């Protein structure tokens, strides 16, 4: 029942994920952070099978960190996306695959461009201007087809994100009440309040 969205704009990527941790029909936690800060300019929202998600996200987080320690520089968003995709693709054809869907948002400090990648548990990697996972995607993608502007400043981007969240809250039966929103731009990653 996880819901996550992401949109790119002029020099930034916004990621949003609900904060509910559920065990079947029971909500057990209402302030779970499902967006990891992988490096100074890289964010990853994860959803999917409980257990797999945190396990895989921490595995990725530690390896991205290890690369940065070894090489002094962090991986660029496209390279990090390729590495994570390869991990999932190899896992898919193993005895027990990870069942984790990801949104990867990053700011490339060498080309000064924001990047957003949509990735599913199969290892399908797509470079997109906006993306969503979970039931929220059925509402958010059509809204974003209409309202997304790649040149919009941050305030407008957050306003469009708000419309997506409001629509999901209004129309989805299993809607989540709270969302955590994080932004990555030239200044790095930070959390914002909607």
């Amino acid at each position, binding site marked *: 029942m996880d819901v996550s969205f992401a949109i790119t704009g002029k020099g930034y990527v916004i990621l949003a994920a609900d904060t509910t941790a559920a065990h079947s029909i029971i909500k057990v936690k209402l302030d779970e952070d499902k967006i990891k800060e992988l490096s100074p300019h890289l964010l990853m929202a994860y959803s999917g099978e409980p257990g797999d998600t945190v396990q895989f996200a921490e595995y990725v987080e530690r390896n991205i960190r290890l690369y940065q320690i070894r090489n002094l520089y962090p991986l660029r968003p496209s390279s990090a996306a390729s590495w994570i*995709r390869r991990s*999932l693709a190899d896992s898919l054809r193993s005895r027990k695959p990870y069942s984790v869907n990801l949104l990867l948002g990053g700011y490339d400090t060498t080309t000064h461009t924001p990047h957003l990648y949509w990735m599913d548990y*199969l290892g*399908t*990697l*797509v*470079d*997109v201007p906006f993306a969503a996972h979970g039931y929220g995607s059925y509402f958010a993608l059509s809204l974003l087809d209409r309202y997304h502007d790649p040149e919009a400043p941050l305030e407008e981007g957050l306003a469009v994100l708000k419309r997506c969240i409001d629509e999901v809250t209004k129309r989805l039966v299993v809607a989540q009440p709270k969302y955590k929103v994080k932004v990555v731009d030239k200044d790095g990653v930070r959390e914002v309040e909607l």
Partner: protein
Amino acid sequence: MSIMQYNGGSVIAMVGKDCVAIASDLRLGVQSLSISANYQKIFPITDRIYVGLPGLGTDVTTLHEQFRYRVNMYTIKEEREIEPQTFAQLVSSTLYERRFGPYFIEPVVAGMQKLPTGGFAPFIAATDLIGCLNFAKDFVVAGTASEKLFGVAEGLWEPDLEAEDLFETISQTLLNAVDRDAFSGWGAVVHVITKDKVVTRTLKGRMD
């Protein structure tokens, strides 16, 4: 629904007079939900060879990386570029290696083959997901719209088309075929390969 139809997408290649063309749609979806309208599934291998990889999205990337690695190793060992014929065999053996747990991709190869005389001849080939090669003299198709592509191509293609006419033929074939397929479409890309250059054009398509 079959895993081959999960992400959608189609590729076609055609032979012309001293040229070949390869084209694909740009959609990537999850069943009927479209995720991207700019998903490239045709990749350059050398200046004269292109490969189209319709099928499961994860295997599109995995196989592209695998082919890039193997072609690079070939280039280093042989100290020359790979020829289309040889590359088609490489594609076939790469897929057959996974005979009992295949990559869910049906590759299409298009390129200009160097002849012993010094000239170039158009070359196209396609394989199924376990690497059974099909060398055709006219056109090859693959992907979720393959049945429709066969029908339209059978009606529109004729021998010895010049590069510009071949572009028109392959474009009309692809656009009209994918409009009848729910899992392909959302724009298209066409590469026309001649012995000394490649012309790439992006086409607008119906977005429904």
